[in-house]
């Protein structure tokens, strides 16, 4: 923990100094959302207060960084009547880890796809590094929930795909791919085809494939949604570790509150029909995140808070309806 922090700071400082980002006019960006204050959340636990203060400075530092993604009045409609996203105003900082949650139908996947350039923007603007997003590009990587590795390519060839398709020299791409394979711990599998890998391995390759082109932003649309709980937890740790060591901003869509809190610096909560920003919540947990944090008071308070926010708009009405179950057994003793 103490070893990593200076490293991270150094990386960040370096990254910031050699970029022209700092010249951006930050006053333009608006955060038109209700922000929960971190202190408010953590007052209940005095023991965590010191830690929380440290986190606050961490978050302050985050917010001091330039914006990498700016959404200004972003709206997305399918057809004339169906509004999926409405008037989204949001600024995402460089090297931030933002998770997006919300009930189904809130347009969180559409948000990621719009940022990726896979969906057109109906109204408003989405800027990356100050440039409007007009289509997909290598500056924004994307990892999908569905396994999207190219099944006819080996692990290594998959990771090389983005590099070579941009005309990068093949042997250089191969060298970089090999480094990535080492990072994700699949050295033994570099010549395997995706059909020979488990779901978790496939998603690790997908992450490496996206990051190999050195995107500024990594968009992740419920990437661990299809994995079992154990694998999911391991993947979350992998992801954090990777993110901490490279200059990338992550926008991570999920429906799992634990995951959203565990990973994020800030959590964007959307409400459905149409998808609008409900709130933008700071996560008062220190980094590096440890599994113990999942049991802390701050974690639980925040989780409850988020659950209330989401359920107030949850439209799946059938959840509370009683089952029309009748007795189908002749065995006398009740199971309960």
């Amino acid at each position, binding site marked *: 923990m103490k070893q990593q922090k200076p490293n991270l700071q150094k990386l960040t400082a370096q990254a910031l100094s050699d970029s022209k980002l700092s010249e951006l006019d930050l006053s333009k960006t608006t955060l038109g959302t209700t922000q929960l204050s971190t202190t408010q959340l953590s007052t209940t636990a005095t023991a965590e207060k010191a830690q929380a203060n440290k986190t606050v400075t961490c978050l302050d530092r985050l917010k001091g960084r330039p914006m990498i993604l700016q959404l200004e009045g972003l709206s997305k409609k399918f057809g004339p009547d169906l509004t999926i996203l409405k008037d989204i105003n949001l600024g995402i900082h460089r090297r931030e880890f933002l998770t997006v949650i919300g009930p189904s139908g809130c347009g969180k996947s559409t948000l990621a796809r719009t940022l990726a350039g*896979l969906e057109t923007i109906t109204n408003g603007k989405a800027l990356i590094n100050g440039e409007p997003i007009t289509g997909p590009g290598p500056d924004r990587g994307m990892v999908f929930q569905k396994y999207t590795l190219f*099944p006819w390519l080996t692990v290594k060839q998959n990771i090389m*795909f*983005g590099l070579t*398709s941009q005309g990068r020299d093949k042997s250089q791409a191969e060298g970089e791919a090999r480094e990535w394979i080492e990072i994700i711990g699949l050295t033994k599998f570099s010549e395997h085809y995706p059909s020979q890998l488990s779901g978790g391995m496939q998603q690790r390759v997908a992450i490496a494939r996206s990051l190999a082109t050195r995107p500024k932003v990594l968009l992740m649309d419920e990437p661990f949604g299809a994995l079992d709980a154990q694998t999911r937890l391991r993947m979350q740790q992998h992801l954090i570790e990777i993110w901490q060591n490279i200059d990338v901003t992550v926008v991570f869509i999920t429906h799992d509150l634990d995951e959203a809190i565990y990973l994020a610096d800030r959590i964007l909560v959307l409400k459905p029909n149409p998808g609008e920003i409900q709130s933008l919540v700071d996560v008062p947990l220190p980094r590096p995140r440890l599994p113990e944090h999942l049991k802390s008071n701050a974690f639980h308070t925040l989780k409850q808070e988020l659950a209330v926010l989401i359920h107030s708009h949850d439209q799946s009405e059938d959840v509370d309806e009683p089952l029309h179950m009748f007795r189908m057994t002749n065995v006398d003793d009740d199971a309960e």
Partner: protein
Amino acid sequence: MQPSNGNSKLLLAASFLLPLLIWSSVSYLPFLWHPNVQITKPGDVSYFRSEMQVERATFDSEVQKAIASGAAVPQGFRVNPVYLPAPDQVFVALYTSFTTEPKRRSEQWLHESLWHSITIIFWGFTLSSLVGIPLGILCGAYSVMSRLFEPFIEFFRYFPAPAFGALAVAILGIHDAPKVAIIFIGTFFQQVLIVANTTRMIDPALIEAARTLGASRPVVLFRVVVPGVMPALYRDSRILLGWAWTYLIVAELIGTSSGITWFITQQARYKNFDNVFAAIMMIGMIGLATDIILSRFSRRLFRWQEGGAH
């Protein structure tokens, strides 16, 4: 439900043995069908000749008449019509038809006829694929291409290929060129539409993934769409190749008759129906063998597919 490995082999054998069993019973059990009688002794019936075949009813009534009038009774045994040879005759013919010398000097041996047919198929199918597969992929990948080409092709494919026979001969002469053209016409239009449809079935998520990796449209086409649909295209081509054999029979009848079709018509004219059956079976065997070889090859080619792994 999937049968177990042993069972599926058994079923494979049975699927060939059952028809053979039916054919054998009809051929070798004299009480099954055998609608004719082959005469061994004509007796006093004026028009009966030895080795002549007559219908059973005719034979029976002549026998009745002979008994009633006290004349010599004709004798014979029940046989199947000459156009249904027994399995053993056909199996022998599978070999002997190769060794039978052509009746005229200008005529071809069977193996030459077969080879001729195979080259016609090969050229017709190859030429069609060289144009049809790329065009089909383009139609499947780009809606502009699809809207430009597919309506006309959809219309054209309803023209029966054999209808172009006379035209093809008039334009291309009487030898092999019009035959190749018929196979081309019969294959090409179906091929474009089938390939386009197959191409459309590629997982759009793969294309999206490629685009987020910064792949341009040509890169997506050549490095995602083409390799992605290749196994399905390979399967389509195997089916289309089977259809090409159907057009072969018509193609070989136009202009100067040639190839295996010439052999079949010639042998039917001589009433060598065992040779006719043998030739038809050869077409089937060549088709099946090609398909098996291609399927083996596909497992090698597309090793990355599920199940083909390890």
